[in-house]
Protein backbone atom coordinates (compact mmCIF):
# COMPACT_ATOMS: atom_id res chain seq x y z
CA UNK A 1 0.00 0.00 0.00
CA UNK A 2 1.31 3.42 -0.85
CA UNK A 3 1.27 6.64 1.15
CA UNK A 4 -1.89 8.59 1.89
CA UNK A 5 -2.75 11.21 -0.75
CA UNK A 6 -4.79 14.31 -0.02
CA UNK A 7 -7.37 15.10 -2.70
CA UNK A 8 -9.10 18.46 -3.11
CA UNK A 9 -11.91 18.36 -5.68
CA UNK A 10 -12.33 19.41 -8.44
CA UNK A 11 -9.90 16.70 -9.54
CA UNK A 12 -7.57 17.57 -12.38
CA UNK A 13 -6.25 15.30 -15.09
CA UNK A 14 -2.80 15.28 -13.42
CA UNK A 15 -4.15 14.20 -10.04
CA UNK A 16 -6.24 11.40 -11.53
CA UNK A 17 -3.24 10.08 -13.48
CA UNK A 18 -1.27 9.60 -10.27
CA UNK A 19 -3.90 7.49 -8.52
CA UNK A 20 -3.47 3.72 -8.44
CA UNK A 21 -5.63 0.90 -7.10
CA UNK A 22 -5.15 0.46 -3.34
CA UNK A 23 -3.94 4.03 -2.73
CA UNK A 24 -5.35 5.47 0.45
CA UNK A 25 -6.71 8.98 0.03
CA UNK A 26 -8.20 11.72 2.21
CA UNK A 27 -10.68 14.13 0.66
CA UNK A 28 -10.78 17.69 1.85
CA UNK A 29 -13.16 20.17 0.28
CA UNK A 30 -16.37 19.71 -1.69
CA UNK A 31 -18.17 16.46 -2.47
CA UNK A 32 -21.58 16.16 -4.11
CA UNK A 33 -24.04 13.52 -2.94
CA UNK A 34 -26.43 11.57 -5.13
CA UNK A 35 -28.00 8.14 -5.09
CA UNK A 36 -30.65 6.22 -7.03
CA UNK A 37 -33.40 8.81 -7.41
CA UNK A 38 -31.06 11.78 -8.05
CA UNK A 39 -29.14 9.79 -10.66
CA UNK A 40 -32.36 8.97 -12.44
CA UNK A 41 -33.31 12.66 -12.51
CA UNK A 42 -29.88 13.75 -13.75
CA UNK A 43 -29.85 11.24 -16.58
CA UNK A 44 -33.44 12.04 -17.57
CA UNK A 45 -32.49 15.73 -17.74
CA UNK A 46 -29.55 14.86 -20.01
CA UNK A 47 -31.82 12.81 -22.28
CA UNK A 48 -34.15 15.77 -22.64
CA UNK A 49 -31.15 17.91 -23.50
CA UNK A 50 -31.56 20.09 -20.37
CA UNK A 51 -28.85 21.76 -18.31
CA UNK A 52 -27.95 19.85 -15.13
CA UNK A 53 -28.69 21.61 -11.81
CA UNK A 54 -25.01 21.23 -10.92
CA UNK A 55 -21.81 21.33 -13.00
CA UNK A 56 -20.11 17.92 -12.77
CA UNK A 57 -16.80 18.91 -14.32
CA UNK A 58 -13.98 17.55 -12.16
CA UNK A 59 -16.41 16.81 -9.35
CA UNK A 60 -16.64 13.82 -7.04
CA UNK A 61 -20.01 12.26 -6.19
CA UNK A 62 -20.41 10.49 -2.86
CA UNK A 63 -23.13 7.83 -2.93
CA UNK A 64 -24.88 8.40 0.36
CA UNK A 65 -28.31 8.95 1.83
CA UNK A 66 -27.64 10.32 5.33
CA UNK A 67 -29.90 10.05 8.34
CA UNK A 68 -31.57 13.34 9.43
CA UNK A 69 -29.27 15.64 11.42
CA UNK A 70 -30.08 15.53 15.14
CA UNK A 71 -30.25 18.97 16.82
CA UNK A 72 -26.86 20.67 16.99
CA UNK A 73 -25.23 18.58 14.25
CA UNK A 74 -24.66 19.33 10.57
CA UNK A 75 -25.51 15.78 9.52
CA UNK A 76 -26.55 12.40 10.89
CA UNK A 77 -24.93 9.11 10.00
CA UNK A 78 -23.55 9.22 6.44
CA UNK A 79 -21.77 6.14 5.16
CA UNK A 80 -21.59 4.91 1.55
CA UNK A 81 -24.38 3.02 -0.19
CA UNK A 82 -23.93 0.17 -2.69
CA UNK A 83 -22.51 1.73 -5.85
CA UNK A 84 -23.67 -0.95 -8.28
CA UNK A 85 -27.20 0.45 -8.25
CA UNK A 86 -25.86 3.61 -9.93
CA UNK A 87 -24.10 1.66 -12.70
CA UNK A 88 -26.79 2.19 -15.38
CA UNK A 89 -26.49 5.99 -14.97
CA UNK A 90 -22.77 6.41 -14.40
CA UNK A 91 -21.33 6.45 -17.95
CA UNK A 92 -23.60 9.39 -18.93
CA UNK A 93 -22.35 11.40 -15.95
CA UNK A 94 -18.73 10.54 -16.66
CA UNK A 95 -19.29 11.88 -20.17
CA UNK A 96 -20.29 15.21 -18.55
CA UNK A 97 -16.94 15.49 -16.81
CA UNK A 98 -17.50 13.69 -13.49
CA UNK A 99 -14.04 12.66 -12.23
CA UNK A 100 -14.71 10.57 -9.16
CA UNK A 101 -17.25 8.57 -7.24
CA UNK A 102 -17.14 7.29 -3.67
CA UNK A 103 -19.22 4.30 -2.56
CA UNK A 104 -18.92 0.67 -1.68
CA UNK A 105 -18.97 -2.55 -3.66
CA UNK A 106 -18.50 -3.78 -7.20
CA UNK A 107 -18.97 -1.76 -10.40
CA UNK A 108 -20.15 -3.22 -13.69
CA UNK A 109 -17.80 -3.95 -16.57
CA UNK A 110 -19.44 -1.09 -18.47
CA UNK A 111 -18.61 1.39 -15.68
CA UNK A 112 -15.05 0.09 -15.32
CA UNK A 113 -14.52 0.56 -19.05
CA UNK A 114 -16.07 4.03 -18.90
CA UNK A 115 -13.64 4.96 -16.10
CA UNK A 116 -10.73 4.14 -18.40
CA UNK A 117 -12.32 5.93 -21.36
CA UNK A 118 -13.28 9.13 -19.50
CA UNK A 119 -10.25 9.02 -17.17
CA UNK A 120 -12.12 8.98 -13.87
CA UNK A 121 -11.67 7.09 -10.60
CA UNK A 122 -13.93 5.02 -8.36
CA UNK A 123 -13.18 5.16 -4.64
CA UNK A 124 -14.54 3.01 -1.81
CA UNK A 125 -14.88 3.95 1.83
CA UNK A 126 -16.00 2.35 5.10
CA UNK A 127 -19.33 0.63 4.38
CA UNK A 128 -21.58 0.58 7.42
CA UNK A 129 -19.53 3.14 9.32
CA UNK A 130 -21.81 6.15 8.93
CA UNK A 131 -21.21 7.48 12.44
CA UNK A 132 -17.43 7.47 11.96
CA UNK A 133 -17.63 9.15 8.55
CA UNK A 134 -20.10 11.81 9.71
CA UNK A 135 -17.26 13.26 11.79
CA UNK A 136 -15.44 14.22 8.57
CA UNK A 137 -18.44 16.17 7.27
CA UNK A 138 -18.22 19.78 8.39
CA UNK A 139 -20.87 21.47 6.29
CA UNK A 140 -23.92 20.54 4.23
CA UNK A 141 -25.88 22.51 1.65
CA UNK A 142 -28.85 21.40 -0.41
CA UNK A 143 -28.09 21.70 -4.14
CA UNK A 144 -31.01 20.12 -6.03
CA UNK A 145 -34.17 18.02 -5.83
CA UNK A 146 -35.18 18.84 -2.22
CA UNK A 147 -38.34 16.76 -2.66
CA UNK A 148 -36.17 13.62 -2.67
CA UNK A 149 -35.34 14.02 1.04
CA UNK A 150 -32.34 11.83 1.93
CA UNK A 151 -31.94 11.13 -1.80
CA UNK A 152 -31.57 14.81 -2.78
CA UNK A 153 -28.30 16.24 -4.11
CA UNK A 154 -26.29 17.88 -1.34
CA UNK A 155 -22.92 19.53 -1.22
CA UNK A 156 -20.75 18.20 1.63
CA UNK A 157 -17.75 20.11 2.92
CA UNK A 158 -15.42 17.45 4.21
CA UNK A 159 -12.11 17.25 6.02
CA UNK A 160 -9.85 14.19 5.85
CA UNK A 161 -12.62 11.98 4.51
CA UNK A 162 -10.95 8.54 4.05
CA UNK A 163 -11.22 6.30 0.99
CA UNK A 164 -9.27 3.91 -1.19
CA UNK A 165 -8.84 3.91 -4.95
CA UNK A 166 -10.92 0.93 -6.11
CA UNK A 167 -10.83 1.40 -9.90
CA UNK A 168 -8.19 3.60 -11.50
CA UNK A 169 -7.88 4.95 -15.05
CA UNK A 170 -5.58 2.06 -15.94
CA UNK A 171 -8.24 -0.64 -15.48
CA UNK A 172 -7.07 -1.79 -12.03
CA UNK A 173 -9.61 -3.26 -9.61
CA UNK A 174 -9.10 -3.32 -5.83
CA UNK A 175 -11.44 -6.27 -5.30
CA UNK A 176 -9.55 -8.49 -7.73
CA UNK A 177 -6.23 -7.37 -6.28
CA UNK A 178 -7.38 -8.12 -2.70
CA UNK A 179 -8.64 -11.61 -3.48
CA UNK A 180 -5.58 -12.71 -5.38
CA UNK A 181 -3.42 -12.00 -2.33
CA UNK A 182 -5.29 -14.50 -0.16
CA UNK A 183 -4.89 -18.26 0.50
CA UNK A 184 -2.88 -18.66 -2.69
CA UNK A 185 -5.99 -17.86 -4.73
CA UNK A 186 -6.07 -15.79 -7.85
Amino acid at each position, binding site marked *: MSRVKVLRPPLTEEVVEELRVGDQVLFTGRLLTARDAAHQRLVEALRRGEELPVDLKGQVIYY*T*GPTPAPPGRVIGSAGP*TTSGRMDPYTPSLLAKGLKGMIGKGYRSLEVREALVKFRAVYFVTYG*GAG*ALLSRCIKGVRLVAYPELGPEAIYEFWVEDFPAWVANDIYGGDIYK*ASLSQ*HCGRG
Partner: protein
Amino acid sequence: MREIAATEVTATVARLFREANLYLPPDVKEALKRARERESFPRAREILSRLLENALIAEKEGLPICQDTGIAVVFLEVGQEVRVVGKLEEAVHEGVREGFRQGYLRASVVRHPLDRVNTGDSTPAVIHTRLVPGDRLKITVMPKGAGSENMGMVKVLRPADGREGVKRLVLETVQRAGPNACPPLVVGVGIGGTVEKAALLAKEAVLRPVGSRHPHPLEAELEEELLEAINCLGIGPLGLGGDTTALAVHVATYPCHIASLPVAVNLSCHATRHRTAVL
Protein backbone atom coordinates in the same frame (compact mmCIF):
# COMPACT_ATOMS: atom_id res chain seq x y z
CA MET B 1 -56.38 -13.30 30.26
CA ARG B 2 -53.53 -10.85 30.78
CA GLU B 3 -54.04 -7.53 29.03
CA ILE B 4 -51.46 -5.30 27.36
CA ALA B 5 -52.39 -1.90 25.99
CA ALA B 6 -51.56 -1.31 22.33
CA THR B 7 -49.95 1.98 23.38
CA GLU B 8 -47.43 0.01 25.41
CA VAL B 9 -46.56 -2.03 22.32
CA THR B 10 -46.09 1.20 20.36
CA ALA B 11 -43.80 2.75 22.99
CA THR B 12 -41.73 -0.45 23.22
CA VAL B 13 -41.30 -0.84 19.46
CA ALA B 14 -40.27 2.83 19.20
CA ARG B 15 -37.65 2.45 21.94
CA LEU B 16 -36.31 -0.82 20.51
CA PHE B 17 -35.76 0.67 17.05
CA ARG B 18 -33.95 3.71 18.44
CA GLU B 19 -31.72 1.50 20.59
CA ALA B 20 -31.10 -1.13 17.92
CA ASN B 21 -29.85 1.54 15.54
CA LEU B 22 -27.53 3.14 18.10
CA TYR B 23 -26.11 0.23 20.07
CA LEU B 24 -24.32 -2.62 18.35
CA PRO B 25 -25.18 -5.85 20.26
CA PRO B 26 -22.37 -6.93 22.63
CA ASP B 27 -22.02 -10.36 20.97
CA VAL B 28 -21.35 -8.73 17.59
CA LYS B 29 -18.85 -6.31 19.15
CA GLU B 30 -17.01 -9.16 20.87
CA ALA B 31 -16.92 -11.13 17.61
CA LEU B 32 -15.39 -8.13 15.81
CA LYS B 33 -12.74 -7.85 18.52
CA ARG B 34 -11.89 -11.56 18.32
CA ALA B 35 -11.68 -11.29 14.54
CA ARG B 36 -9.28 -8.34 14.83
CA GLU B 37 -6.96 -10.40 17.03
CA ARG B 38 -6.92 -13.30 14.58
CA GLU B 39 -6.76 -11.26 11.39
CA SER B 40 -3.43 -11.55 9.56
CA PHE B 41 -3.95 -8.76 6.98
CA PRO B 42 -2.82 -5.33 8.24
CA ARG B 43 -5.43 -3.43 6.23
CA ALA B 44 -8.17 -5.80 7.40
CA ARG B 45 -7.09 -5.31 11.03
CA GLU B 46 -7.19 -1.56 10.57
CA ILE B 47 -10.69 -1.76 9.05
CA LEU B 48 -11.98 -3.91 11.92
CA SER B 49 -10.63 -1.31 14.37
CA ARG B 50 -12.45 1.44 12.50
CA LEU B 51 -15.70 -0.54 12.51
CA LEU B 52 -15.41 -0.94 16.28
CA GLU B 53 -14.63 2.76 16.59
CA ASN B 54 -17.74 3.49 14.53
CA ALA B 55 -19.89 1.51 16.99
CA LEU B 56 -18.36 3.46 19.87
CA ILE B 57 -19.01 6.83 18.22
CA ALA B 58 -22.60 5.81 17.50
CA GLU B 59 -23.14 4.91 21.15
CA LYS B 60 -21.47 8.00 22.58
CA GLU B 61 -22.83 10.58 20.17
CA GLY B 62 -26.28 9.11 19.68
CA LEU B 63 -25.84 8.62 15.93
CA PRO B 64 -27.08 5.58 14.02
CA ILE B 65 -24.36 2.96 13.47
CA CYS B 66 -25.18 3.07 9.74
CA GLN B 67 -27.13 5.59 7.69
CA ASP B 68 -29.18 2.70 6.35
CA THR B 69 -31.38 2.41 9.42
CA GLY B 70 -33.18 -0.33 7.58
CA ILE B 71 -36.58 -1.61 6.78
CA ALA B 72 -38.31 -2.40 10.07
CA VAL B 73 -38.55 -6.16 10.57
CA VAL B 74 -40.49 -7.12 13.69
CA PHE B 75 -40.88 -10.58 15.23
CA LEU B 76 -43.80 -11.00 17.63
CA GLU B 77 -44.25 -13.98 19.91
CA VAL B 78 -47.72 -13.59 21.31
CA GLY B 79 -48.62 -15.69 24.33
CA GLN B 80 -51.97 -17.44 23.94
CA GLU B 81 -53.04 -16.06 27.31
CA VAL B 82 -52.36 -12.45 26.51
CA ARG B 83 -54.81 -10.05 24.95
CA VAL B 84 -53.62 -6.86 23.31
CA VAL B 85 -56.16 -4.10 23.91
CA GLY B 86 -56.29 -2.30 20.58
CA LYS B 87 -54.91 -3.19 17.17
CA LEU B 88 -51.62 -5.07 17.48
CA GLU B 89 -50.24 -4.58 13.96
CA GLU B 90 -51.28 -0.92 13.90
CA ALA B 91 -49.52 -0.47 17.24
CA VAL B 92 -46.32 -1.89 15.75
CA HIS B 93 -46.45 0.38 12.68
CA GLU B 94 -47.07 3.37 14.94
CA GLY B 95 -44.06 2.33 17.04
CA VAL B 96 -41.89 2.30 13.92
CA ARG B 97 -43.22 5.74 12.94
CA GLU B 98 -42.45 7.18 16.39
CA GLY B 99 -39.11 5.47 16.84
CA PHE B 100 -37.77 6.55 13.47
CA ARG B 101 -38.89 10.15 14.03
CA GLN B 102 -37.63 10.44 17.60
CA GLY B 103 -34.36 8.70 16.81
CA TYR B 104 -33.59 10.77 13.68
CA LEU B 105 -33.51 7.54 11.69
CA ARG B 106 -33.73 7.56 7.92
CA ALA B 107 -37.00 7.00 6.11
CA SER B 108 -36.06 4.12 3.82
CA VAL B 109 -39.34 2.53 2.74
CA VAL B 110 -41.35 3.11 -0.44
CA ARG B 111 -45.14 2.68 -0.49
CA HIS B 112 -45.11 0.39 -3.54
CA PRO B 113 -42.28 -1.69 -5.00
CA LEU B 114 -42.96 -0.37 -8.50
CA ASP B 115 -44.02 3.26 -8.12
CA ARG B 116 -41.39 3.78 -5.37
CA VAL B 117 -42.64 6.82 -3.46
CA ASN B 118 -41.03 7.13 0.00
CA THR B 119 -43.60 6.76 2.79
CA GLY B 120 -41.56 9.29 4.77
CA ASP B 121 -41.73 7.45 8.09
CA SER B 122 -40.28 3.99 7.36
CA THR B 123 -43.68 2.33 7.72
CA PRO B 124 -45.04 -0.22 7.21
CA ALA B 125 -43.01 -2.74 9.17
CA VAL B 126 -42.57 -6.32 8.01
CA ILE B 127 -44.21 -8.29 10.84
CA HIS B 128 -43.83 -11.99 11.62
CA THR B 129 -46.17 -13.24 14.33
CA ARG B 130 -46.19 -16.56 16.18
CA LEU B 131 -48.66 -17.74 18.79
CA VAL B 132 -46.87 -19.38 21.72
CA PRO B 133 -47.90 -20.70 25.13
CA GLY B 134 -47.86 -18.27 28.07
CA ASP B 135 -49.07 -14.77 28.93
CA ARG B 136 -46.18 -12.67 27.61
CA LEU B 137 -45.57 -10.72 24.46
CA LYS B 138 -42.02 -10.92 23.12
CA ILE B 139 -40.99 -8.27 20.61
CA THR B 140 -37.78 -8.47 18.61
CA VAL B 141 -36.92 -5.70 16.20
CA MET B 142 -34.39 -5.95 13.41
CA PRO B 143 -33.60 -2.88 11.31
CA LYS B 144 -32.43 -4.56 8.11
CA GLY B 145 -30.25 -2.65 5.68
CA ALA B 146 -30.54 -3.21 1.96
CA GLY B 147 -26.81 -3.63 1.31
CA SER B 148 -26.86 -7.09 2.85
CA GLU B 149 -30.55 -7.93 2.35
CA ASN B 150 -30.21 -7.40 -1.42
CA MET B 151 -27.62 -10.16 -1.63
CA GLY B 152 -29.81 -12.87 -0.06
CA MET B 153 -30.88 -16.02 -1.88
CA VAL B 154 -33.65 -18.62 -1.87
CA LYS B 155 -33.41 -21.73 -3.99
CA VAL B 156 -35.03 -25.15 -3.99
CA LEU B 157 -32.36 -27.81 -4.47
CA ARG B 158 -32.87 -31.45 -5.34
CA PRO B 159 -32.68 -33.85 -2.38
CA ALA B 160 -29.75 -35.48 -4.22
CA ASP B 161 -27.80 -32.19 -3.97
CA GLY B 162 -27.70 -32.80 -0.21
CA ARG B 163 -25.26 -31.24 2.20
CA GLU B 164 -22.70 -30.45 -0.50
CA GLY B 165 -25.34 -28.67 -2.57
CA VAL B 166 -26.28 -26.54 0.43
CA LYS B 167 -22.64 -25.64 1.06
CA ARG B 168 -22.11 -24.70 -2.58
CA LEU B 169 -25.15 -22.43 -2.57
CA VAL B 170 -24.06 -20.64 0.63
CA LEU B 171 -20.52 -20.12 -0.66
CA GLU B 172 -21.75 -18.86 -4.04
CA THR B 173 -24.09 -16.42 -2.30
CA VAL B 174 -21.33 -15.01 -0.08
CA GLN B 175 -18.94 -14.82 -3.02
CA ARG B 176 -21.46 -12.99 -5.19
CA ALA B 177 -22.26 -10.58 -2.34
CA GLY B 178 -18.57 -9.75 -1.93
CA PRO B 179 -18.07 -6.19 -0.68
CA ASN B 180 -21.69 -5.17 -1.34
CA ALA B 181 -23.07 -6.79 1.80
CA CYS B 182 -20.54 -5.00 4.10
CA PRO B 183 -18.58 -7.97 5.44
CA PRO B 184 -17.70 -9.38 7.93
CA LEU B 185 -21.11 -11.01 7.75
CA VAL B 186 -23.44 -12.95 9.94
CA VAL B 187 -24.75 -15.62 7.58
CA GLY B 188 -28.18 -17.10 8.29
CA VAL B 189 -28.97 -20.36 6.49
CA GLY B 190 -32.47 -21.83 6.47
CA ILE B 191 -32.76 -25.41 5.24
CA GLY B 192 -36.03 -27.29 4.76
CA GLY B 193 -39.71 -26.45 5.05
CA THR B 194 -41.01 -24.67 1.97
CA VAL B 195 -39.77 -21.66 0.02
CA GLU B 196 -41.19 -19.14 2.50
CA LYS B 197 -40.37 -21.24 5.56
CA ALA B 198 -36.71 -21.55 4.55
CA ALA B 199 -36.52 -17.77 4.01
CA LEU B 200 -37.93 -17.09 7.47
CA LEU B 201 -35.64 -19.66 9.10
CA ALA B 202 -32.64 -17.97 7.50
CA LYS B 203 -33.68 -14.53 8.76
CA GLU B 204 -34.36 -15.83 12.29
CA ALA B 205 -31.01 -17.63 12.29
CA VAL B 206 -29.26 -14.27 11.92
CA LEU B 207 -30.72 -13.25 15.30
CA ARG B 208 -29.04 -16.06 17.22
CA PRO B 209 -26.21 -14.81 19.46
CA VAL B 210 -22.91 -14.64 17.55
CA GLY B 211 -20.51 -17.18 19.02
CA SER B 212 -23.27 -19.57 20.14
CA ARG B 213 -23.15 -23.21 19.07
CA HIS B 214 -26.12 -25.03 17.56
CA PRO B 215 -27.38 -27.72 19.98
CA HIS B 216 -27.55 -30.41 17.26
CA PRO B 217 -24.28 -31.83 15.87
CA LEU B 218 -25.54 -32.02 12.27
CA GLU B 219 -26.16 -28.25 12.20
CA ALA B 220 -23.18 -27.37 14.41
CA GLU B 221 -20.73 -29.19 12.14
CA LEU B 222 -22.20 -27.61 9.02
CA GLU B 223 -21.86 -24.18 10.63
CA GLU B 224 -18.20 -24.77 11.44
CA GLU B 225 -17.37 -26.09 7.99
CA LEU B 226 -19.18 -23.22 6.28
CA LEU B 227 -17.52 -20.59 8.45
CA GLU B 228 -14.09 -21.96 7.63
CA ALA B 229 -14.85 -22.21 3.91
CA ILE B 230 -16.30 -18.67 3.80
CA ASN B 231 -13.30 -17.21 5.58
CA CYS B 232 -11.04 -18.95 3.11
CA LEU B 233 -12.63 -16.97 0.25
CA GLY B 234 -10.39 -14.05 1.20
CA ILE B 235 -13.10 -11.42 0.67
CA GLY B 236 -12.30 -9.89 4.06
CA PRO B 237 -13.67 -6.85 5.92
CA LEU B 238 -15.42 -4.53 3.43
CA GLY B 239 -14.31 -6.89 0.67
CA LEU B 240 -10.80 -5.44 0.68
CA GLY B 241 -9.13 -8.77 1.47
CA GLY B 242 -8.48 -10.65 4.68
CA ASP B 243 -9.26 -13.66 6.82
CA THR B 244 -12.53 -12.29 8.20
CA THR B 245 -15.36 -12.58 5.69
CA ALA B 246 -17.93 -13.88 8.20
CA LEU B 247 -18.19 -13.57 11.97
CA ALA B 248 -20.62 -16.48 12.20
CA VAL B 249 -22.76 -18.91 10.24
CA HIS B 250 -26.06 -19.89 11.82
CA VAL B 251 -28.01 -22.80 10.40
CA ALA B 252 -31.69 -23.51 11.12
CA THR B 253 -33.53 -26.54 9.77
CA TYR B 254 -37.11 -27.77 9.44
CA PRO B 255 -38.65 -31.00 8.09
CA CYS B 256 -39.56 -30.86 4.41
CA HIS B 257 -41.30 -32.69 1.57
CA ILE B 258 -39.74 -35.98 0.37
CA ALA B 259 -39.06 -34.33 -2.99
CA SER B 260 -37.69 -30.91 -1.88
CA LEU B 261 -34.62 -29.34 -0.39
CA PRO B 262 -35.40 -25.63 0.01
CA VAL B 263 -32.44 -23.48 1.08
CA ALA B 264 -32.37 -19.79 1.94
CA VAL B 265 -29.40 -17.59 2.77
CA ASN B 266 -29.94 -14.34 4.63
CA LEU B 267 -26.88 -12.14 4.91
CA SER B 268 -26.38 -9.55 7.60
CA CYS B 269 -23.62 -6.94 7.58
CA HIS B 270 -21.01 -6.28 10.27
CA ALA B 271 -23.61 -4.06 11.93
CA THR B 272 -26.03 -6.87 12.71
CA ARG B 273 -28.64 -4.95 14.67
CA HIS B 274 -31.48 -6.28 16.79
CA ARG B 275 -33.13 -5.69 20.14
CA THR B 276 -35.69 -7.63 22.17
CA ALA B 277 -38.16 -6.82 24.94
CA VAL B 278 -40.70 -8.96 26.76
CA LEU B 279 -43.96 -7.38 27.91
